[in-house]
């Protein structure tokens, strides 16, 4: 591999990682705060992409879709949490089955409503071409994804560190029970958390759609990748999601071009190695043992 090629593939890996961060942040938040592994996360992501498709078909505007889809998904999350998840607090296997079930329903309804053909979302105007980087063309949309993810990360950090909501979230990740004892309305907090997590999945769906397409099966891929990122990085922390995404994106990209025969399992092998060395992920503070 020439240096130029290494740089290009590194950019490809970083932009893929950037997308993974957007995708995994929501899953990580829900896990850290609510102690729920939301296996419907991939379905939320998929729904986000289809909502975006619908919005673009109606308005012709990607920039409207990138706002509307997360809001729709947040609303879905806001309904699902109190309706279905609330009564399952602490019952992990039931949460697994329930979120798998919710995912099945969403994905099947998407198929019924939007059909099961492969779809694409056009690149937003101005982001459908390449610019020159180090003597070779690089797609602008992927640079946009990187910039967007960095901006999102910054915003999330700011919320996390500087706002009252962030303080509640930090406290909740540390000890949700204590928070409840202190008189915080955890029911409401959890509903909001779940809504934000679902909204972030929807956002990832919109951002991914122009680059990766919209098709049946995208939910499973997204779910597995986001689980890997969250587990590798360490559960429930923003740092963890960022570190996981920064590692998994480039590893996946280089891995599959350098060792295509192992492409199917490479990322799993990396995850296994990391977990064997650090059983609670790179930034994991707590070992979730039950």
């Amino acid at each position, binding site marked *: 591999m020439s240096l130029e090629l290494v740089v290009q593939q590194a950019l490809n890996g970083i932009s893929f990682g950037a997308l993974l961060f957007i995708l995994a942040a929501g899953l990580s938040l829900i896990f850290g705060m609510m102690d729920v592994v939301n296996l419907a996360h991939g379905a939320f992501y998929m729904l986000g992409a289809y909502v975006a498709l619908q919005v673009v078909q109606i308005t012709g505007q990607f920039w409207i879709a990138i706002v509307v889809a997360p809001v729709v998904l947040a609303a879905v999350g806001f309904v699902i949490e109190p309706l279905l998840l609330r009564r399952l607090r602490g019952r992990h296997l039931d949460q697994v089955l329930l979120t798998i079930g919710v995912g099945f329903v969403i994905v099947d309804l998407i198929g019924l409503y939007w059909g099961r053909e492969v779809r694409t979302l056009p690149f937003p105007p101005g982001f459908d071409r390449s610019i020159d980087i180090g003597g070779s063309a690089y797609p602008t949309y992927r640079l946009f994804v990187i910039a967007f993810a960095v901006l999102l990360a910054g915003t999330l950090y700011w919320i996390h560190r500087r706002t009252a909501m962030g303080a509640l979230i930090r406290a909740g990740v540390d000890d949700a029970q204590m928070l409840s004892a202190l008189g915080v309305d955890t029911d409401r907090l959890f509903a909001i958390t779940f809504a934000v997590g679902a909204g972030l999945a929807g956002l990832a769906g919109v951002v991914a759609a122009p680059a990766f397409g919209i098709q049946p099966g995208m939910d499973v891929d997204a779910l597995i990748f986001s689980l890997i990122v969250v*587990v590798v990085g360490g559960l429930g922390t923003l740092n963890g999601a960022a570190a996981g995404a920064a590692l998994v994106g480039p590893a996946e990209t280089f891995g599959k071009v350098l060792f295509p025969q192992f492409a199917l399992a490479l990322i799993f092998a990396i995850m296994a190695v990391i977990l064997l060395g650090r059983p609670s992920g790179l930034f994991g503070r707590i070992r979730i043992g039950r």
Partner: protein
Amino acid sequence: MAPLASIGFYLALLTFPDWSGAIEGSRYMTTILRDMTVFAIYALSLDLLVGRAGMPSLGHAAFYGSGAYAAAIASQRLATSELTVTLAAAIAVSAALALVIGLLCVRATGIFFLMLTLAFAQMVFAVAFQWTDVTGGSNGFAGIARPTFGGLETSAPEALYRLVVIVFGLVSLLIWWISRSHYGRALVGVRENERRMRALGYHTRRLKLSAFVLAGALAGVAGALSAWSFRFVSPNDAGIGRSVEAFVMVLIGGAGTLLGPIVGAGVVLYIDRVLSSAIPFSQAVLGVVFVAFVLAARQGIVGSLRAALVRVRR
């Protein structure tokens, strides 16, 4: 237990091909019952981990798939259809694989255990998909000979059905015996409070590893039976879909019970493979069933029926 009813039910199942002749479509019923029974063994094996020892494995298809491939490849390479050889190969390969994966995984718990088992299963899937010379790769492995036992043939559907049901009976007995044994109770102890078990002097990691290997071996048996039933193995049989199926069967039926995984296997296979013909959105129905069971039937179908019966009796 109500041994008589169980034995009666089992005998009815075993002799189904003999007495069902008058029912229209009984031949296909026999086929579906056979497949349900294979899946029941598979679900029972996973329940050892999920239900008894509290180890939520999302990679159980690794052992189902490796058992299926091992039986198929042994039969081809050794040019034999002798049950003792091919079944031994299936058990040996899946148990050995479970030992290796188990050694690496049993330290982890909860979601980490779940993801580690998924990761290793995905590696097994990749090997099945890529190692074309041995496994047939993405094309799958066709033309698997049905086993012979001594002079007995199982190429006829009824004979194979009986073999499957007999193995199912033996596995059920084993699980039932484990559930009542000191060993089985120790596993439940590990699930409930691993630290206390350790304090009591149990080598908990070794206990968990033994359960993992046993569950892997039994899944390998189920895999071998499926290889003979379908006379075909594909990478799908080691894939994540197959792992999720087992997981869901255990949870729907009721984890930690003998009957639960069996009923779960029947229900899931029915909705996913039989009902799917009749309606265009069977996945959504399956999803709704999951949600309904989680909300209405806390301990799965069997657990809830039990609880209801206790209430009725009072």
